[in-house]
């Protein structure tokens, strides 16, 4: 496959090359890329690779998951806390198709993943052989790139390409589908990391005219707001962001995935954007005269009605992916390129400024939200525990933990009430909104950052989507702290049914298993808390217990997340109740 491409690799001196199997070439390519951890699940068409892995157990840590979807989610958690590429191995057919949700999630949330899938022997391709599926076709729209390898000698170059594509530019998932005969075949092993692909230019040249125009608008603006996305984290540009904000004096709001790029207590941080974001950054959207979008993509959960988003504002869009420019919202000044380079070019040229009066307007909003929503939500009152108070209490007990969430109400409560001190501290499924993401992602996060606490918030619905991974937690001894928000409902859908469908709770009530028995069956420490007065003690017990812990919080059954922007409405129509 190399012959058709003009890839450039670092030049290597001529030498005697070892002759090894394609399978061993896979493993040695991983080692050459600095891989330490693999998430996977063996099966017929990938046995040769697992056979090779057996000899490298001391150098590669393989985590055996319980379902292939969770291999990807775990690798996503790992990639997002470490900044490295997550690596997975699965077999052909059902092993491969099970990964599709994970790949789609990684594509939408720009997470670098390399997935090696086994495939039937090349002589059997296209014959509907046992566990054969056209995985290249299936993953066309859920990967950044994919390829099939049918010869052992093509494996190192394909894997080098995969790692380069997954991690460069806007990161994403890639698939290398390897036939069984290629795994078994012999090849000379020579690994050369790839630095250039002529049809793939991941970093656009930064246009100095656009920089100057952005500087001009920033200097003129009286009511600017920065919108911080995950692009800042992916580009390792947290420091550059801080310098930009502190020189410009501009208030900054964050998208869900951009959280933790800026510490929660930064004086210019004004909260989270979006449908269930904070009151200030949504309501002030209408008053802004300049929006500076930094590494974010104007998801509809952020913009509401895009035609009314920033209706009085000019928009500067700093973005690495040309396809995101003008996709949803028209950018008056698009600044293409790596923000780690473009942001300092702007910072250098803007005037030192102070927008404290404008930031005070956000503070007024924050006070309204605190009095009307946050304080009542975290207050220890009422007959039942509520999600807000649980998140608040966990965040206070676990200083500087990594937050992992599932999808739904707990996701919104957790992302708003959890406090962040440093970057790469939130792992959540933003774009795809994959229920069941939380538990496996938390496993990957803990393995990626063993020295940090990992707190997972998950609902009773989401936990049951991937609860088989409790087995992985026990087998691999992963010390994840699981906070189960059990309200007996698919809470977010129930909230919509309450507000917009006349309380017709169509199939959102769950009759749940005994979660204590589920924890015990998987040999995981467990405690249940129902009363306000037991909450702190239960959280302390979870904290002081070595290893994994499942804390079941029986919370108010019909609590709603507010504020809320109704779907399709302008964001300044945000409702406090």
């Amino acid at each position, binding site marked *: 496959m190399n012959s058709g491409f003009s890839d450039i690799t670092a*030049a290597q001196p001529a030498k005697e090359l070892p002759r090894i199997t394609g399978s061993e070439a896979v493993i040695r390519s991983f080692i050459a890329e600095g891989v330490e951890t693999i998430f996977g699940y063996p099966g017929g068409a990938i046995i040769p690779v697992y056979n090779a892995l057996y000899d490298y157990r001391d150098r590669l840590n393989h985590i055996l998951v319980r379902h292939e979807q969770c291999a990807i989610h775990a690798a996503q958690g790992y990639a997002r806390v470490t900044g490295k590429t997550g690596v997975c191995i699965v077999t052909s057919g059902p092993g491969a198709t099970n990964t599709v949700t994970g790949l789609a999630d990684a594509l939408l949330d720009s997470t670098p993943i390399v997935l090696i899938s086994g495939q039937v022997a090349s002589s059997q391709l296209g014959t509907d052989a046992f566990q054969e599926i056209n995985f290249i076709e299936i993953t066309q729209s859920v990967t950044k790139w994919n390829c099939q390898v049918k010869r052992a000698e093509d494996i190192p170059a394909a894997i080098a390409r995969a790692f380069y594509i997954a991690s460069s530019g806007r990161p994403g998932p890639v698939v290398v589908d390897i036939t069984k005969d290629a795994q078994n075949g012999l090849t000379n092993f020579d690994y050369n990391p790839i630095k250039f692909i*002529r049809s793939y230019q991941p970093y656009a040249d930064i246009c100095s005219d656009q920089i100057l125009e952005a500087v001009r608008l920033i200097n003129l603006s009286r009511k600017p707001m920065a919108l911080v996305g995950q692009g800042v984290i992916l580009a390792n540009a947290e420091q550059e962001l801080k310098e930009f904000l502190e020189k410009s004096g501009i208030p900054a709001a964050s998208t869900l995935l951009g959280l933790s790029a800026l510490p929660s207590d930064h004086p210019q941080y004004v909260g989270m954007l979006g449908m269930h974001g904070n009151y200030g950054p949504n309501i002030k959207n209408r008053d802004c005269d300049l929006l500076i979008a930094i590494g974010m993509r104007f998801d509809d959960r952020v913009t509401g009605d895009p035609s009314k988003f920033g209706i009085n504002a000019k928009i500067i869009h700093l973005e690495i992916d040309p396809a995101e420019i003008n996709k949803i919202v028209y950018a008056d000044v698009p600044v293409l390129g790596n923000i780690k380079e473009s942001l300092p070019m702007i910072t250098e040229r803007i005037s030192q400024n102070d927008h404290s009066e404008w930031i005070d307007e956000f503070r007024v909003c924050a006070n309204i939200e605190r009095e009307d929503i946050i304080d009542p939500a975290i207050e220890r009152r009422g007959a039942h525990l509520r999600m807000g108070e649980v998140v608040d209490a966990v965040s206070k007990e676990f200083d500087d933990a990594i937050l992992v969430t599932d999808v739904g109400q707990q996701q919104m409560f957790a992302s708003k009430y959890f406090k962040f001190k440093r970057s790469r501290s939130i792992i959540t499924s933003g774009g795809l909104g994959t229920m069941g993401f939380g538990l496996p992602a938390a496993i990957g996060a803990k393995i990626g950052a063993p020295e940090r606490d990992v707190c997972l918030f998950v609902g009773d619905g989401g936990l049951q989507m991937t609860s088989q991974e409790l087995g992985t937690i026990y087998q691999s001894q992963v010390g994840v702290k699981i906070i189960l928000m059990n309200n007996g409902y698919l809470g977010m859908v129930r909230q919509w049914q309450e507000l917009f469908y006349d309380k017709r709770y169509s199939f959102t009530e769950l009759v749940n298993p005994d979660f204590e028995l589920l924890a015990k069956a998987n040999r995981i420490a467990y405690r249940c808390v129902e009363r306000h007065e037991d909450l702190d003690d239960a959280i302390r017990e979870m904290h002081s217990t070595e290893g994994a812990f499942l804390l079941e919080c029986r919370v108010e059954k019909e609590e709603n997340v507010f504020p809320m922007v109704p779907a399709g409405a302008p964001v300044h129509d945000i409702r406090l109740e």
Partner: protein
Amino acid sequence: MEREFIITIFSENKVGILSQVTTVFTHRNVNIESIAASPSAIEGIHKYTIAVKNDPERVANLVKQIEKKVDVLKVFCYSPSEVVMQQLALYKVKRSRNVEELVRRHNVRILEIHDEYIVLEKTGHKAELDELYQILAPYGIYQFVSSGQVAIIKSRRELLDEYLKYVNEKRDRILSETK
């Protein structure tokens, strides 16, 4: 407002590119009016010519999404006035004296004459091919097929060459940095 566009896509010559490209059209809900694939003038580079009718913003976004595909080199989008376009059609028509007269009047080539039918070929713009179809229809068309539109830009600049020059310089820079 819907307008006609000709999108030309240059890619590496690799299995599965067409499927990568058409996935973008399905995902972004844009219908393909016609499609043609062939090697380009540069060895190893394939060219796809796709005609669409859609609103300009949507097409602009579509072009960027196609270009995002790793094996796609470069995508250009033109309005019909910027290119020379041709399309070829074959008509299998019931044989009659009237048809033979029409052939002479409409500058149509005869490819095959049979007792029962006659096979005609016409090259031109889509509108001309459609017009001929309408004229022949009353005489009985057994079969009709047309190729995708093919197009060559009128501009003197060779945009793909300029792009390749740019990426080659970039490659040389990266090479010298890694040495």
